[in-house]
């Protein structure tokens, strides 16, 4: 029924890690209760941290504004539960550092009802108003990058967007939250796409879904609302199909320029969860206070998709789902790119789409011995951006970090870890690249002084 604009269906290179999605993709989303204390970090997004507007001992309602945006590339924060603000203090966050956060002691009687604001007429609103409303809702990319959505929807002078892409790929192993969302909240997804189309002025929208989600493909194809230029397209299941550059290449055969943005090829790409939340929050001017997270892994007793309020400490979530005795490592997100956490006190934030618990067995299965690079070329064949990871790795060993950036496109690398996944010599390539990028940032900061 839909006109097929899709070219290609896939991108070159990439890898095929085992999916591990069976345990959670058939379970409906379950709502998680409130933890006794919620810890809401003020910087849950790329850009300037939000600024707290509440004070100690202040009582807040669920959904009430607790921090306002700290600039254009910033979004506000809202209270995920009704309760009292106990302090605004440092909290341990996933990166291992301490950052300012609002601590809320949740009312024992707190209900799930969230504060509603003035009704917002989406039909009548101008694109600029829509973008402003999206910022006020505290919306960021829920696929993991946590980039403020309204910035993506702000089309600068001289640029146009002709296509909006909805990213339903979810290429990371283990994660199924987007899959469940597409099955359970398809109406919100379409409504969100309509908003995005209007705000960006695009002619059409394409929902890209990996072909391991046939049920979602079929359901969405059959449910596209009449009159909307929305098309549903399958893409080959491959990692990292869900990266926006790869999706744009697969669906439209356009390459985002090195160092550029999707806007440069007239595309705006949003995660399906972000779009669904957009439609859910805007009508009553509500704020983002909860999101679906896949809690899974061999170290979890009751894996599934849970609707979790922001700021919930990992310990609470894992107590609810049950950790096995041999659980040793907890990862936020998927196993290819997700960071390990050093403590279960760390709270969930807007960008956390998965919580993965791995056991001693997975740790033991990880090869320990590192061999020299045998120039097998597997990494060169795996890198979706056609970089040369073995050469970059050799330069990193010699600490030639500036050469990596200037001659060999280090900054194009988005750390998908396909190269490290395939390396038979177990060289920690992506860790070297992170070190290199960090050293280059330090050097630049030192020069500016």
């Amino acid at each position, binding site marked *: 029924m839909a006109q097929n604009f899709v070219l290609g269906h896939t991108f070159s290179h990439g890898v095929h890690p085992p999916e591990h999605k069976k345990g959670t993709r058939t379970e409906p989303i379950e709502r998680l209760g409130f933890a006794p204390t919620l810890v809401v970090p003020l910087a849950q997004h790329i850009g300037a941290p939000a600024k707290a507007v509440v004070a100690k001992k202040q009582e807040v309602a669920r959904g009430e504004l607790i921090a306002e945006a700290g600039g254009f590339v910033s979004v506000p924060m809202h209270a995920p539960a009704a309760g009292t603000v106990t302090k605004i203090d440092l909290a341990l966050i996933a990166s291992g550092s301490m950052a300012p956060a609002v601590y809320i002691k949740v009312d024992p009687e707190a209900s799930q009802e969230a504060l509603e604001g003035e009704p917002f007429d989406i039909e009548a609103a101008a694109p600029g108003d829509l973008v402003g409303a999206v910022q006020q809702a505290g919306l960021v990319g829920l696929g993991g990058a946590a980039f403020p959505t309204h910035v993506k929807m702000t089309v600068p002078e001289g640029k146009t967007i002709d296509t909006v892409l909805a990213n339903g790929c979810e290429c990371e192993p283990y994660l199924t939250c987007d899959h469940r969302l597409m099955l359970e909240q398809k109406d919100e997804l379409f409504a969100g796409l309509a908003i995005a189309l209007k705000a960006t002025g695009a002619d059409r929208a394409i929902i890209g879904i990996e072909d391991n989600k046939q049920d979602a493909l079929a359901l969405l194809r059959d449910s596209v609302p009449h009159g909307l230029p929305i098309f549903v397209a399958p893409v080959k299941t491959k990692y990292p199909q869900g990266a926006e550059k790869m999706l744009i290449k697969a669906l439209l055969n356009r390459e985002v320029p090195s160092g550029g943005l999707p806007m440069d090829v007239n595309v705006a790409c949003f995660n399906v969860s972000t779009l669904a939340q957009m439609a859910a929050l805007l009508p009553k001017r509500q704020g983002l206070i909860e999101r679906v997270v896949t809690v899974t892994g061999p170290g979890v007793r009751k894996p599934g998709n849970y609707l979790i309020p922001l700021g919930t400490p990992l310990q609470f979530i894992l107590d609810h789902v049950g950790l096995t005795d041999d659980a040793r490592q907890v990862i936020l997100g998927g196993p290819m790119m997700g960071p390990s956490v050093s403590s279960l006190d760390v709270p969930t934030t807007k960008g956390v789409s998965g919580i993965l618990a791995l056991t001693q067995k997975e740790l033991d299965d990880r090869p320990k011995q590192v061999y*020299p690079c045998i*120039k097998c070329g597997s990494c060169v064949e795996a890198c979706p951006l056609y970089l040369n990871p073995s050469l970059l790795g050799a330069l990193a060993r010699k600490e030639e970090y500036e050469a990596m950036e200037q001659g060999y496109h280090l900054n194009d690398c988005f750390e998908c870890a396909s190269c490290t996944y395939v390396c038979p010599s177990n060289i920690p390539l992506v860790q070297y690249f992170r070190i290199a990028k960090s050293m280059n940032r330090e050097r630049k900061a030192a020069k500016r002084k």
Partner: protein
Amino acid sequence: MSSEPLSVDILTSPHVKRPMSTNAIMRNVAVALAPVALFSIFAFGLSALLLLSVATISCVLTEWAVCRLSGKPNTVGDYSAAVTGLLLGLTLPPSFPLWMVAVGGAISIGLGKALFGGLGYNTFNPALVGRAFLQAAFPVAVTTWTPPFVQGRFLACIPSTLAFPFLKPTPVAEYIAAANIDAFTGATPLNLEGVTRLADPLDLFMGMTSGSTGETCAVLILLCGGYLLVRNMLDWRIPAGVLGSVFALSGVLHLINADTYPGPLFMVFSGGLMLGAIFMATDMVTSPTTALGVWIFSILIGVITVVIRLKGSLPEGVMYAILLANAVTPLIETWTQPRVFGTTKKASSTS
């Protein structure tokens, strides 16, 4: 507010790995070479067994000694030295004196690998470095051929095998005469090519001719290569490029002048080409990593092999062809770096 945490491990992503490791690759290459080695022992007897053993032991010992002396951790466990030893043995004639084999093994690892920095840093295929050294140092011994399937080959060595170090090895002429094989003159099919059309390609294919220990049975080499291909440890493009270009170039020349130039099938199945194309040229460390580079590399080997065989004074060209291509590999790699995603070719070129 901090609860006593369970003992947590933190590691960098990715937290999953493809189950293929370097020493698994090396082990599989050794396993793939086993049938070839066994056939050679079957064809040439006790001498072949001793030859392969001494070559392997010499390489492994040299690597162990180098690691010990340099204070670095022992790398013998990655099996690459054993593979080098096996390959070196397979390229030598079965009558080759054992003491010379030992020297060759030490040179292969010492000069061909350790001097460059060990596994992953060498430019040249170590087995071929050893072979080239032996070719230069002991030219007579390395071109002394004996026939296969001699009676009594499992009970006694070929006389020159057990030669005393630094003394001239016992000539094999009597041995060959005693073997009593009709029309065998101690030359390989390639040697004879200019004189008479002796070898039938089918014989060459099935390993019924004389030659170096491992190069005779082409079908077995192909099958073993197939095993590695199926396990995704062999780049199919290199044997395809080498054999294809040999076939094409010799085919063209044969069409031009069928009397002077031998047929393409003969060229493909004779000598060490099969072994070289499938096990030597495909050595990952010494071949390029880029797609275009791999094709240029393999076609270069094929062309040089044909040229040396037909126009050079040596009967066998594969060894030098591979060594020359190895030398050019860094340059090929630099010139064939692919375009980076999101750039035009000029923008991504690096020098």
